[in-house]
């Protein structure tokens, strides 16, 4: 079976290429947007192709003779949405049998309500634009599938971690730079999914008969917290997770901050400022102060305090999660059983940290 992997140089795509090729699961065709992105898959002798995810013709040519296409392109909302129709139509043109789309569990929000399943309604009112883009992408794909011939399987993985994952490297970087923080002491549920377990689900999705048109939530078997995910990273680098502070406030997304700044400088705001009584001005300032960059009073006579830890809105929501998303539908229809335990996944994650040049205390772990 020949499988085209779109987004082959990304974190999930690169592990998918590596695992499918080394295990001989399928004949892999990595597809990347630019020549420089072929550096990763070129560790192997593979039939790599260049195609722009927005360009139907170059995609169709890259998909030629492939039975399956995995859409693993990551990116901003415009990339998420702009690649949907070209990829589906190119797959159709190339005679692809099935398209596996990597959506995200965040279509249900970063902090899903208890009882959420694949059949829960999806909203376009998420505060995080990425979530809305993934919801729209799924809807577009469903419409394309309704009138097209290429089968569609939508996977909704949770927090995918593993070698080359930014969840791992960014926390490791933050620890080293002294900027790491937790939300609620890391007690929130992390809907983790080790990348090899996601690949196991992709493997099932390639041929599962009743999967066409379905969406599947995916996760690791164990229920874990953010502290469980972060602790092995901290320990490997010689840090005690208990000493890592909690973030002190929610930082709204940069767009909100920019809008506030602009609003404050507007002529209307200036006029209001001169008209409103002092008390009202103070109340207004206090209400909007959490949207501002934190400022520290500096003096030549004192040392600057350590940097304040600020959680992004996304991390604040993720860290508040109290619900483990189910994956029983994937078990039922894709035959998905996570082959890698969380403990083994953490050992492999730490092995990668050592490989990637992080000062891991015992890289043989």
């Amino acid at each position: 079976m020949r499988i085209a992997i779109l987004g082959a140089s990304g974190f999930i795509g690169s592990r998918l290429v590596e695992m499918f090729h080394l295990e001989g699961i399928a004949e892999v065709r990595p597809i990347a947007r630019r020549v420089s992105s072929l550096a990763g898959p070129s560790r192997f002798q593979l039939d790599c192709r260049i195609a722009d995810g927005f360009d139907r013709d170059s995609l169709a040519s890259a998909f030629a003779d492939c039975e399956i296409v995995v859409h693993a392109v990551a990116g901003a909302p415009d990339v998420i949405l702009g690649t949907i129709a070209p990829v589906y139509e190119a797959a159709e043109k190339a005679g692809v049998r099935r398209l596996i789309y990597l959506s995200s569990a965040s279509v249900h929000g970063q902090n899903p309500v208890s009882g959420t399943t694949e059949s829960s309604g999806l909203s376009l009112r998420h505060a995080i634009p990425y979530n809305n883009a993934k919801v729209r992408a799924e809807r577009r794909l469903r419409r394309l599938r309704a009138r097209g011939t290429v089968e569609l399987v939508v996977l909704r993985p949770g927090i995918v971690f593993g070698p080359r994952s930014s969840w791992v490297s960014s926390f490791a970087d933050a620890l080293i730079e002294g900027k790491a923080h937790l939300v609620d002491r890391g007690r929130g549920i992390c809907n983790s999914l080790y990348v090899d377990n996601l690949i196991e689900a992709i493997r099932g999705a390639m041929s599962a008969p009743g999967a066409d048109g379905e969406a599947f939530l995916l996760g690791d078997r164990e229920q874990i917290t953010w502290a469980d995910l972060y602790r092995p990273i901290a320990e490997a680098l010689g840090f005690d997770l208990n000493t890592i502070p909690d973030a002190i406030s929610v930082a709204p997304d940069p767009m909100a901050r920019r809008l506030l700044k602009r609003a404050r400088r507007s002529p209307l705001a200036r006029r209001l400022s001169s008209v409103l009584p002092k008390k009202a001005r103070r109340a207004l300032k206090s209400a909007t102060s959490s949207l501002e960059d934190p400022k520290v009073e500096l003096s030549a006579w004192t040392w600057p305090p350590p940097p304040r830890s600020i959680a992004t809105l996304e991390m604040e929501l993720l860290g508040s999660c109290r619900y483990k998303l189910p994956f029983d539908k994937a078990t039922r229809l894709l035959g998905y059983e996570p082959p890698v335990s969380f403990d083994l996944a953490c050992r492999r994650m730490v092995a990668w940290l050592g490989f990637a040049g992080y000062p891991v205390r015992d890289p043989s772990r």
Partner: protein
Amino acid sequence: MPSSPVRVALVGCGAVAELSYAPALRVLSAEGLLEVAALVEPNPESSRRLEATFPDARVHRDTTALSEGTVDLAIVASPPRFHAEQTIQLLREGVSVLCEKPMAATSLEAEAMIAASAAAKRVLAIGLVRRFLPAAQTVRALLAQGVLGDIQDFHFTEGGRFRWPTRSADYFRPGAANGGVLADIGTHLLDLIVWWLGEPMDVRYEDDAMGGVELNCRVELRFPEGFTGTVRLSRDCDLPSRCFIRGTRGWLLWSIHAPEHLTLHFEGTACVVSGRLHELPAGPSQPGAGRRVANFEQSFVEQLRNVVASVRGDARPFVGGQEALAAVRLVESCYRHRTLMPMGWLNEVEAARAGKLSREGSAR
């Protein structure tokens, strides 16, 4: 040698020609030191932008049109597998050559290039631009004067997602490419090691090529004086791009992408000195700092200025073929001793297959 501008041919119109050589050529052309007389590029699509930059240059599809009568200096910036063949042919035609790194795919080829240069009595310089960086030159001087005492060890790392805007997938194709990250940026670091510390006596090398070209590699070097060092390179992981050397009297740290800065620590002190390099003040004035040293781009121009002066007979090439040969030998030795890097995230089936593919790749 000509007193009029040196006539230059740019052989290969890819990314390095466009991003590095073209701006440097324009600077020296404006100074009247050279003129770009020819562009050589088999692919018309690739040469189009440089044709617009150098409208007076004649465009050729191969190097056969170049000779002593048409150009004085050829900059060979074609894919590395063509370096030896093109350089030797040009030298035989009486044209001096600045060959971009890596000098050649093998030491045999490099030696043939050096011999061709000697036979033709023409300049052969190699584009190892990092030797022109003020920080690299300062490190060499500090080490030569024993400022750090006896060297204990060193650790060089450089890496990040590969973003060089190469246009050809040949860059990653075994057989077409001379290698991966080692042959590419590794050539620069191994050259600096030899230049600063001498030639190692023992090499251990591992990378992650499994039938293709390596994305990551690690080199361990042992020196006759007893110290050891490591070099870790990646086109994948965000490694700090830096050279760290520790001696009995202190250590130094150079961040490669900050060529105007250096950090030093001396034993017995509780501080490090970290700062920007300046030239010595002009004239016999009070002690102090002169103007800022050259940045990377200016150093690239200085490299070209040195080669042009060498072609005119006014200087010696700062990095001639013989000087660059050691790095070629070292890269060759690494590939000869290659083993697979441990990749602890692979499962048993993957690890077994990875080992097999790596061994088959080495045998090719």
